């Protein structure tokens, strides 16, 4: 699905959800800022419109004013304070900024899931914060149904190396990362050289890659759409990766958006895209 179509579908869903959702009680925070795509999309799905959302590369929840985000604080504190938010849904990435927000008497919550399994609980947390518990349960049930549909009938389980970044340095997604877990749901056997890291990413050696001989290599460059072709060609010219099954069969691809990098609600459609375009295991 194109980005425009995704955006239109998202907007339609927001409007529908907003129409169906029960009104929040007087206690629910009225002025909410959602700094992550996950929290913004969850609010949208619950029919709650935030007063501002965090700007994200490739984000499509274009239904509220955006705040530019930058290290180390995240949002600009002056801009955020001027919005007088009653609740800020933030990210662990902005730990330093979260402390400042609390000093400015803002209520700050960090309901950001690390994995798909974690996501259901976080959705229900957000739903409780905005007094939409019933909507939260429905949303979780819908996502579970979508994932169940998307993971049916796996014809094969290819070895897949999912690489973070634009270079040829193999920082790979591990099973405990957001994208790594989705890959496994899609039927991939992740090439991770048995590396472990709490961050979900690790640098593995080129020798380990040749030894693991992945069938598919997918780069997740976190880059602009117009740069993707160049990045793919660059990755395909890697002399070491050319030695693998993926290199010899020209199955080195580049993923174009943030769906494998950051938590989001479209897990089912992401799994379907991965299976159709890259794993070819339908």
């Amino acid at each position: 699905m194109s980005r425009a179509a995704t955006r239109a579908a998202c907007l339609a869903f927001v409007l529908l959800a907003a129409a169906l959702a029960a009104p929040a009680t007087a206690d629910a925070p009225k002025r909410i800022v959602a700094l992550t795509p996950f929290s913004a999309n969850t609010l949208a799905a619950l029919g709650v419109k935030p007063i501002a959302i965090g700007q994200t590369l490739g984000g499509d929840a274009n239904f509220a004013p955006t705040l530019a985000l930058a290290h180390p604080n995240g949002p600009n504190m002056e801009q955020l304070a001027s919005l007088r938010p009653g609740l800020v849904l933030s990210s662990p990435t902005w730990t330093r900024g979260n402390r400042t927000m609390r000093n400015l008497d803002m209520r700050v919550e960090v309901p950001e899931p690390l994995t798909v399994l974690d996501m259901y609980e976080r959705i229900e947390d957000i739903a409780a914060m905005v007094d939409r518990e019933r909507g939260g349960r429905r949303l979780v049930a819908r996502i579970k149904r979508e994932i169940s549909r998307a993971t049916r009938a796996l014809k094969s389980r290819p070895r897949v190396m999912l690489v973070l970044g634009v270079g040829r340095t193999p920082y790979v997604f591990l099973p405990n990362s957001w994208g790594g877990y989705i890959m496994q749901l899609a039927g991939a056997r992740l090439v991770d050289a048995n590396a472990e890291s709490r961050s979900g990413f690790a640098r593995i050696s080129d020798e380990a890659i040749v030894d693991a001989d992945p069938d598919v290599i997918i780069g997740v460059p976190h880059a602009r759409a117009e740069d993707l072709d160049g990045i793919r060609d660059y990755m395909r010219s890697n002399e070491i990766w050319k030695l693998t099954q993926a290199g010899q069969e020209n199955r080195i691809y580049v993923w174009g958006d943030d769906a494998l990098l950051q938590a989001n609600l479209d897990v089912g459609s992401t799994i379907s895209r991965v299976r159709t375009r890259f794993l070819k295991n339908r």
Partner: protein
Amino acid sequence: MSGRRVLVVAITVAALLAGVGASLALGTIDVPLREVIDSLLGRAEEGPAKQIILQLRLPRTVDAILVGAALGVAGALLQGALGNPLASPDVIGVTAGSGFGAILILLAFPGSIALLPVGALVFGLTAATLVFVVAWIGPDGGGAGRLILAGIAIAALFAAGTTGLMTAYPDRVQSAVFFLAGGLVSDGWDEMKVVWPYFAVGFVLAVSLIRPLDRLALGDDVAASLGTRPRLIRLGAGGAAALLAAASAAIAGLLGFLGLVVPHVIRMAGGTASHGFVVPVSAIGGAALLLAGDTLARTVKPPLELPVGPFMVVIGVPMFLWLLRKAV
């Protein structure tokens, strides 16, 4: 004091006052000047504007003044004590040590982000202590050359540690870039509460070293004949510079350029190397430069706030080169 020096003092004080005004009045959100003044005088009504002025801009302005002054003084002390125009807090290992301490917290213990200033301070002072220990033990201990070489070695050690951490946590390196580039952050008074005693001790020590440093400038033998103990003065100046530079790094990251350039600019502009002039005017000049750089860094592309290090270089280098050409 000669007319030239009076003019230099007047210009730096005017630059400092202008910097304070700009830092308080300018930002991402337009706050009318009247409201800025009312907030500072405690007459403003509760609301975002008052929060922005009192809890974001005022602490940041104070941070910039203290850090700029501290780095200017640290550079002046070290250049005087070591008799080396290239001396700056980098030379005694403080910058590398503070960098390692901060990156350790940012990358390995991001959940304990509140400890960032403590990490920078502790490791900055640890690095300086190691440099002094290495430079002072053995024959000919306490000489300027030995101190500089020990500083280079210890700085390399901590820099290697920083690189190691960045390699071990590649996905978190982005959060360290701002600290390494040097920049102030709008985060209230929390960090200043931790580090202000180190600034206070460093400044008091610096003031007490002004006359001994002037004697040291005559050479170790002459200074000794005047009753000054060169090695002790060097140790005191190094200790004060270490305190000031480590406390600065805890608040604003790595801004080594300021400590190197400001004392030279003041010396060349004033036409004197007297520490009674160079140390206090470097404090004022450093504060003015950092205020100007920080105000630019947060207003040039709002709402994004850019690291201040490059802006100080843009402001400071042309001035420095112009003075250098005139001096030559």
